[in-house]
């Protein structure tokens, strides 16, 4: 069986980001505010080099969100 997120063409990273957001929004107001302020932790960044020059630095999650 193919998972729904895979059928929709999402990456696993994107799927997890959506699931995590739903979890954060379901919290009680106190912990929710704290979690929303922190947001999705985006620590993995990458830069594409072309012709010996670095391009723009992007986070993995912003890139998979654009897909």
């Amino acid at each position, binding site marked *: 069986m193919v998972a*729904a997120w895979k059928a929709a063409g999402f990456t696993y990273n994107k799927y997890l980001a959506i699931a995590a957001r*739903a979890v954060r929004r*379901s919290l009680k107001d106190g*912990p929710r505010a704290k*979690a929303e302020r922190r947001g999705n932790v985006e620590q993995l960044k990458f830069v594409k080099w072309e012709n010996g020059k670095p391009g723009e630095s992007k986070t993995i999650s912003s890139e998979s969100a654009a897909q």
Partner: protein
Amino acid sequence: MNALRVARAAFKARPQAVQVFKRGYAEAAGPSDKIKLSLTLPHQTIYKTSDVVQVNIPAESGDMGVLANHVPSIEQLRPGIIDIIEEAGGSKQFFLAGGFAVVQPGSELTINAVECYPVEEFSAENVKNELAEAQKIASGSGSEADIAEAKIEIEVLEAIQASLK
């Protein structure tokens, strides 16, 4: 000839001595009926190689309980409840949004998740509101990606709702 006899006597004596000092790896490693649990998020460490008795995880292939000396495996996790039975006899329940559980040799369990909160920190009210909103989007006329996104949210929210009851 005399030296050879002495050497032979020493050789004979050895097996006894070996038996006296024989000790297995498992004994040296301490009690083997506990599993070392690490539960980590990108922003927080909830358990750091803590000894627990049992961990029930919602794996993609079905719910499973992990005890000490479990066979090594890697499991993808569904959004769901993870049940941790601690040494003191108490148990803690967390809801996690998906991730991976790795059972390593030597009774070690490592769980990586994006978000994970104690069940008490969820608000049934907020879940209900979010669910209503996601259902509206899913049955609306938005883009295909929006609908797929809403469907994922519904799946997660329904899992939370089921675990709060």
